């Protein structure tokens, strides 16, 4: 059986763990197969869970998040016959590892453009969970997109906290949203797990637009969620599970716009929010990025952002 091990946030984090869970579930439903899964509780369990699943013969094993990098580095060597996949990591070496890294900055760029175009106040907001590099990558891509669509626009940025509670505080998310609204923001992008739910909710209550993250969150508040920045962890997991023991490993997949690894959501809930003009603009930008004509700066490349 394949297995998936979620990060500390848990499989219902409304973020990429949940996306991974959805991918695995989709695979199980379509194929009738079953899979092992576990939500770890502490750092020490990363290695433990990996090893225990590998010992049990689970294959392939997917781990979600860069937190697993060093654990996987150790365990993958102990089990050369087991195949592993890791999300959000591209710096490991190992013949039995498939690394899957997402270009969140590219997806964020597109929703940033949409935000700037949808904004009437020329001010848009970003609410992140914690000040960590991953979130900065979202923020930086978003800001670039905003500026690309409207150089005069302002981006208001907030982080929700410094402890793990930062990912599960919708009340604070709501409050930050109100603060940003009072600062003029009328489109707000939330990359903050459960805290983001409070952002989307408050945006809907206050009559401004919001942007969801990771999974498609458009349905949460139809007509109020402008779009969602998609990070197709679900597809990645689905692919890994589908390939099963024949999984191609020793590769690093860069999941960007070109291979639909990231993107934005368009469905019946936000059809009316995205004008033809907006769709055309992002389609063009997307094409340019894929073609390499536009390079979205990756915060991780030099740990700084050209715009903010």
């Amino acid at each position, binding site marked *: 059986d394949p297995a998936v091990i979620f990060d500390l946030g848990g*499989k219902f984090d*409304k973020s990429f763990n949940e996306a991974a869970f959805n991918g695995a579930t989709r695979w199980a439903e379509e194929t009738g197969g079953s899979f092992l899964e576990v939500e770890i509780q502490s750092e020490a369990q990363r290695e433990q869970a990996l090893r225990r699943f590998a010992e049990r013969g689970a294959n392939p094993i997917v781990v979600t998040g860069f937190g697993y990098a060093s654990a996987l580095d150790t365990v993958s060597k102990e089990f050369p016959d087991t195949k592993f996949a890791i999300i959000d990591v591209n710096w490991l070496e190992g013949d039995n590892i498939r690394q899957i890294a997402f270009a969140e900055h590219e997806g964020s760029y597109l929703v940033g453009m949409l935000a700037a175009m949808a904004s009437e106040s020329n001010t848009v907001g970003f609410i992140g969970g914690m000040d960590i590099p991953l979130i900065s990558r979202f923020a930086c891509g978003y800001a670039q997109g905003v500026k690309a669509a409207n150089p005069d626009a302002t981006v208001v*940025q907030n*982080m929700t906290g410094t402890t793990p509670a930062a990912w599960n505080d919708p009340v604070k998310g709501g*409050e930050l949203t109100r*603060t940003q609204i*009072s600062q003029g923001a009328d489109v707000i992008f939330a990359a903050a797990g*459960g805290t983001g*739910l409070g952002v989307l909710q408050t945006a809907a209550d206050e009559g401004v637009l919001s942007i969801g993250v990771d999974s498609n969150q458009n349905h949460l508040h139809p007509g109020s969620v402008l779009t969602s920045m998609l990070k197709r962890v679900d597809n990645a997991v689905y692919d890994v599970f589908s390939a099963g023991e024949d999984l191609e490993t020793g590769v690093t997949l860069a999941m960007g716009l070109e291979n639909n690894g990231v993107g934005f959501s368009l469905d019946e809930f936000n059809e009316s929010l995205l004008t033809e003009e907006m769709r055309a603009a992002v389609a063009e930008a997307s094409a340019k990025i894929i073609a390499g004509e536009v390079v979205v700066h990756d915060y991780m490349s030099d740990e700084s952002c050209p715009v903010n």
Partner: protein
Amino acid sequence: MEVFDTIIQISDSAVRLAIPLLLACLAGLFSERGGIFDIGLEGKMLAAAFLSAGVAAATGNVWLGLFAGIAVSVVLALIHGVASITFRGDQLISGVAINFLAAGLTVVIGQAWFGLGGRTPALPGDGRFSNLEWPVADALKDVPVLGPVYSELISGHTFLVYVALLIVPLSWYVLFRTRFGLRLRAVGENPGAVDTAGISVVKLRYSAVIICGVLCGLAGAYLSTGLAAGFVKDMSAGRGFIALAALIFAKWRPVQALMACLLFGLLEAIANRYQSIEIGALEIPVQFMQALPYILTVVILAGFIGKAIPPKAGGEPYVKER
């Protein structure tokens, strides 16, 4: 004018952030005035937030949700009471246990109930407390100075906010102007005096604990059905502990509790507003701004507040025969 608007907005935010603290703080106030220390405010709040959102989601009726939230909080309070009053257990341990129980059970039950990993579905309109617009708030909006104060700061909060604010003078009245209040304060200071006056220490302490449960229930319900629209695991996010800090800050007095909670709310609102400041070339890190409310609390505590003396008999079970 812009400065003024900002002040109004920050104050507005401060009020919203202060209310859950205030309710929990008053809950702790009644409990501790009665001699029962309660570090389980957090857990009771969390449990109430969960059940009120859960019931509101299931029934679509926020009032049922509110009552369910209060009920579960009271049940937890009674467990604390049984442990610390009837069985004379350690009040700190019991409080810690309740925090664990609430943190675990909300997710376990929530998962079994809604299958959303401990989350409740987002609440529909009737499943939430909506903001009450005060009369002619809209019309007065543009009146300078007083207009925004009235229409934004005073008007437009949920029902529970006004309830919480009313509970402050009510608490004061109950504590300092009624028989019950006199006895409650006495039982927290010297249960022997109450006992020899022929009043049941046990009954008084249970009533203190139940009031605490009701108020924590309100606090939790406000979190999930007033401020947010649904429950997310661990959503109390340490507010119960901040409420305890506020309680000590307020030296166990209702009006001061309001002040302390507003101060905490204000500090948080300010930190939210000004997360990234650049002073010249120096960029103040966001983490510093996020820690600022806590740093300022320590500074204020060290600088202005004298020794806070808790109710004398607090934390000790009352034993007349050993």
